[in-house]
């Protein structure tokens, strides 16, 4: 804290940048997952539950085995399992996928709080960060540039998915299922299987996002750990208009917006803290109002998506 004071307004900028990188990582992972799911024509509104269950699993396994990496893996597995459940129920005829998401939201959080009760007190082994600030003598700069490998994994995934969705065979298959289920069936693809896979992959990434919360930043497990990042990520996907690369920029923007409040607090500005927190939601709503139209579906949205009709 004192370091930030020494740096004055530069410290504020530094805190925003560092905060944006830390806060944006779960947004990035969850929104990339949701992009995958939505590209296949399904919406999983239950990612908040997935995120919290992932956070709990990661923390519990890291605590029990001493390995944060095993923890992350189990977070992904828990997320994929919830994704499978979502897909299995949504695959039934005449079941609304949005509603299933809301149900999984409740179920996932309940399960996480139930199973995670014994793990609220202990400390688990945290994920290590990559120190990129060793060139500086200032501890503030050093801690600001200690960056999680998950952040880089997120960037790599964003680039890979952007390319993969456009230029690979499976990307095309995914997009066909999302644009026209009839066309996909006509060429012999199983829409249900594609969407199941996409929802599981989305769940896996969201689980990782939860693992980041409990094993890196803020780096503990309690029932107030998530402040709605899972639901936020759904708005973020719309804001990014279903592009993985734009998900990355939007995550940084959303992360930066949530980092502004705490950062300006260090120089004594406390007014409007909560309004800054609401900025991403207002921005997304504004973008929705701007880009929606009565006569056509949302630009860039997969046509099979229940929220774009």
């Amino acid at each position: 804290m004192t370091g930030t004071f020494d740096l004055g307004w530069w410290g504020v900028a530094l805190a925003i940048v560092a905060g944006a990188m830390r806060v944006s990582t779960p947004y990035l992972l969850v929104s990339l997952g949701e992009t995958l799911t939505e590209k296949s024509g399904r919406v999983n509104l239950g990612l908040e539950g997935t995120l919290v269950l992932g956070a709990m699993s990661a923390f519990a396994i890291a605590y029990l085995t001493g390995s944060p990496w095993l923890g992350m893996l189990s977070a992904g597995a828990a997320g994929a399992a919830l994704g499978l459940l979502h897909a299995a129920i949504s695959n039934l005829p005449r079941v609304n996928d949005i509603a299933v998401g809301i149900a999984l939201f409740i179920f996932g959080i309940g399960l996480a709080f139930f199973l995670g009760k014994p793990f609220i007190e202990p400390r688990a082994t945290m994920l290590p960060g990559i120190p990129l600030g060793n060139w500086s003598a200032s501890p503030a700069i050093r801690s600001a540039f200690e960056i999680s490998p998950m952040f880089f994994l997120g960037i790599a995934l964003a680039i890979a998915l952007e390319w993969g969705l456009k230029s690979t065979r499976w990307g095309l298959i995914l997009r066909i299922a999302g644009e026209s289920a009839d066309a996909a069936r006509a060429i012999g693809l199983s829409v249900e299987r594609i969407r199941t896979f996409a929802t599981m992959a989305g769940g896996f990434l969201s689980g990782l996002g939860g693992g980041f919360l409990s094993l890196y930043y803020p780096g503990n497990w309690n029932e107030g750990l998530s402040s709605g990042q899972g639901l936020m990520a759904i708005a973020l996907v719309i804001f990014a208009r279903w592009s993985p690369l734009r998900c990355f920029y939007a995550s940084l923007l959303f992360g930066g917006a949530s980092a502004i409040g705490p950062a300006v607090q260090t120089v004594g500005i406390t007014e409007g803290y909560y309004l800054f927190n609401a900025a991403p939601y207002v921005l997304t709503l504004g973008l929705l109002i701007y880009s929606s139209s009565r006569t056509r579906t949302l630009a860039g949205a997969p046509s099979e998506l229940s929220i774009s009709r």
Partner: protein
Amino acid sequence: MQEPQPTKLAARGAGSLLGRTWSPRGGSLSTDSLESLLLSLIAIAVAALIFGAFLALQGHDPLAVYRTLYLGAFGTRFSLESTLTQAAPLLLTALCTLIPARVGLLVIGGEGAVVLGGLAAALAGVALAGAADLVGTVLTLAAGALAGGLWIGAAGALKHFRGVNETISTLLLNYIAIALLNHLVSGPIRDFSQTLKAQSWSIPKAFMIGNMPGWSVHWGLLIGLVGCVILNVLLRHTTLGFAMDVLGGNRRAAQMAGLPLGRLILLATFLGGAAAGLAGAVEVVAVHGAASESLVVGLGYAGILVAFLARQNALAVIAVALLLGGISASGGLLQRRFDIPHAATTVLQGLIFLCVLASGTFAGRLLPRRSAQ
């Protein structure tokens, strides 16, 4: 204007939304209602079985847990009162999803409408200080309902005039409402004499509504019950309700019939939001006496669950709210008796929700129809 394909319209209709078992295959209304009830009961039974297995895996005796759950929910006068208190706000927040669903919209903004209703009620109560007691109470509640109605009504207007998806907009509005509440109670309208927590100025004591005579359950329960009954009459037995059903069932048909689509959408979203706003106002007027974070406890999200479980039937909301209120109310007893975390009740509610949704796929196929194809 490019018309959407009819197949998609059918898929979007009220038949699939909230899993209501109305189906174009024919069959009398009573067959549909009976099937609806049967499906819900089967779904709840399946959820109870899965939850029982889950408990057994944890080393508990499921039967003993269920006996205690019943005891904690309905077994004693005290637990019944606690159940009724838990159920009261759900009666109204469920309507926030239920009414717009009748016109084919999936609104999940109950949480935000509760918050805004509570906020408006607190402000109105403070502003009306000095008014006659009853007038003050009524106007305070009305302010909450109006604020909630305008909030969700705005989502309806965005849907109708701009085509903004109502599910996403109401989700965003939830967060905006909560941020607004936090902002206001942390400074502009904060009562700084309350040092324990950030809350708004308090409404006059005289405006508060207490418990119903002979019960330790506040009047909010009666308000909720009356709300559900009125809505049931409105939706089932008036031309307006029928018009909403036509719109929810088939938008194109409603358009052809010359129904005022915009007005129906605005009215349905306004009424839904008003119900949730009223729930928030009741929380302020009957429980907290001021607006604070205590309004953000998931009443809106629980209301979505109630609405789906009730399958668009405003009267069924009463039974479902009692069931879910009972499950929540028994959490404390379960924790004391078996050392089961309180979250077990959330797991059970989530399981019931999932099973009810899955059961929707059997709608129209469970009971034999006279005109089956």
